[in-house]
């Protein structure tokens, strides 16, 4: 509506301006024409030289078209006769005559008839020469123009209203769709997303942002939903180790040193349990209450070494090798902002998976660093993941069809991805079945160049 009103105002100003200025110009122009004609009329009527007078007449007839209702008045000024008298006699307006006598020349308009006159001295006598005519141009052309402008205005109004209506529909339709779609998304069907459009950039961005928001919400939601399962999975490993250690110690009577050793090991695992529990609580908190996880500056290689040390204890048969061939020269390029416990958990998951699903075949961990992020690549030679199942590996409890004989709950990878997301990192898994899996992790640097 606003658009239509603005348009009408602009058009009115534009059309009205054209009409007004053209109208004003047509007067000026017409008076000039009349003045020229008055001059010529004086010449051929009053010039004493007949030859010249004839020549003027000829030119006048040949080259100057006759105006509508054109009349010539040649009046000899008689000092005895008043202006009123002349006016009555010649039927010319008295004001015009008075002004001609006073100023030498003048113009006048009466209705649609225009007058232009001047004085013309001839010998001793003085004449007034007036030419009057109807302004055909003004009366016809301008009214034609006025009609065109009015019709144009109405047409434009119609077209603008139509297009404004159409465009508002076109622009608001996607937004209406978004509203409808969003209304259908609830806790039960959190996986639903808005379909991304190709051509409408702004709407596409809005949808992307919305989907992104939904992704984060879904992650937080799922983390919370699966908290118990996640916790039991993550707590299982150290608990098994504690139980195992205690079992072995209780088989027979041992020396005090051996008990001490066992207790130390149990304590270490219990501490680890404590760490994991704390980390999981952190994760749940970020998912729901929005509490900040404490981040610190950490070296990625430190964490990886720490993870390897733990795995070495739990699974001494592992063959994890570090590939430092692309380790950056500058140690600052290994420092990231992160939570030590969470990242420890994430990498432990990835490395454990790599060892587990490859029957402890060699696993290579490579580290490199660009100017903005650390890249960690974990490559195994294990059973791989069937190609059509790769899209589902981040779904909680999903397990690939070829992993029946391996222990696990399908929690590790979603949890790892959640942790990496919290660190603004990415996780990319590529796999070839029966050949191996490669996991690429990127985490932004603390001090990007």
């Amino acid at each position, binding site marked *: 509506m606003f658009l239509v009103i603005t348009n009408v105002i602009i058009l009115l100003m534009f059309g009205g301006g054209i009409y007004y200025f053209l109208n004003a110009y047509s007067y000026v122009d017409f008076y000039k024409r009349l003045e020229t004609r008055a001059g010529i009329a004086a010449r051929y009527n009053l010039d004493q030289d007949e030859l010249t007078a004839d020549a003027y007449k000829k030119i006048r007839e040949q080259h100057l078209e006759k105006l509508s209702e054109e009349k010539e008045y040649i009046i000899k000024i008689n000092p005895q006769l008043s202006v009123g008298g002349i006016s009555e006699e010649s039927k010319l307006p008295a004001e015009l005559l008075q002004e001609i006598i006073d100023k030498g020349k003048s113009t006048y308009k009466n209705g649609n008839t225009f007058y232009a006159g001047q004085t013309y001295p001839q010998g001793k006598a003085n004449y007034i020469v007036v030419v009057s005519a109807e302004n055909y141009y003004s009366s016809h052309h301008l009214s034609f123009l006025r009609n065109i402008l009015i019709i144009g205005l109405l047409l434009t109004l119609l077209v603008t209203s139509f297009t404004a209506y159409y465009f508002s529909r076109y622009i608001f339709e996607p937004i209406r769709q978004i509203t409808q779609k969003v209304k259908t998304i609830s806790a039960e069907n959190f996986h639903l997303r808005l379909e991304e459009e190709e051509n409408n950039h702004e709407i596409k961005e809005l949808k992307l942002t919305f989907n992104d928001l939904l992704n984060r919400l879904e992650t937080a939601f799922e983390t919370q939903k699966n908290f118990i399962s996640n916790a039991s999975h993550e707590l299982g490993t150290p608990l098994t180790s504690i139980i195992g250690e205690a079992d072995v110690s209780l088989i027979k009577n041992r020396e005090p040193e051996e008990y001490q050793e066992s207790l130390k090991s149990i304590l270490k695992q219990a501490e680890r349990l404590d760490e994991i529990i704390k980390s999981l609580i952190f994760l749940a908190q970020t998912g729901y209450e929005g509490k900040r996880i404490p981040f610190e500056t950490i070296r990625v290689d430190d964490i990886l070494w720490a993870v390897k040390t733990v795995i070495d204890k739990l699974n001494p048969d592992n063959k994890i090798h570090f*590939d430092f*061939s*692309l*380790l*950056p*020269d*500058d140690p600052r*390029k290994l420092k990231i902002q992160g939570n030590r416990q969470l990242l420890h958990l994430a990498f432990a998951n990835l490395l454990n998976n790599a060892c587990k699903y490859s029957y402890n075949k060699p696993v*290579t961990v*490579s580290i*490199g*660093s*660009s*100017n*903005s*992020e650390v*890249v960690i*690549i974990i*490559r195994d030679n294990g059973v791989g993941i069937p190609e059509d199942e790769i899209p589902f590996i981040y779904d909680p409890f999903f397990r690939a069809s070829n992993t029946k004989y391996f222990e696990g709950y399908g929690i590790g990878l979603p949890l790892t991805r959640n942790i990496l997301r919290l660190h603004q990192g990415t996780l*990319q898994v*590529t796999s*070839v079945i029966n*050949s191996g899996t*490669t996991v*690429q992790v990127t985490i932004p640097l603390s001090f990007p160049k």
Partner: protein
Amino acid sequence: MHFITNAHFILMPKTILIPTNFKVSSLYTLKVALEDYKEKEVEIILLYADVLESSITELLFFSPRKRIEELMSDEFRTAIEIIKNRFEPNLTTLSIQLFQGKNQASFVNFLEAKCVDEIYTLSKPNLPAGTPCAKLHFFIDRATIPVKKVDHHNNDLLSEGDHLQSLFA
């Protein structure tokens, strides 16, 4: 005199040419080359064989820098940064150039102009025949300067995608 020549030779950074197709896997050669010359200063030229358009407008607005920007993927950029960060001290310069020559002579001229000392290339570049890149490999095979062929173990496996992991093979 002999001594001076030798000293000059030692101080000059070694210029190595590496053909690339703007795939991360092609940078594996770069990693091998830099590992081979860990103790020396090295100048690297990554060379991409390109076809020069014959249209007058294309030629008028042709800019090698823009063309290279266009060809580079994010992965490729990251891979180059990773390598630069690793070999920072001995990698003096790394430039990416386009080669639009059509015959062996133009390639020889290019090598001479850039003072290239050695070429590193994949032993099985796996390029479709008839492409400019394949042609470049043909020129490299006939080059008179030393050419080192590098084996890439996972070449077949990784040729499908262009992942950073092919750099770490």
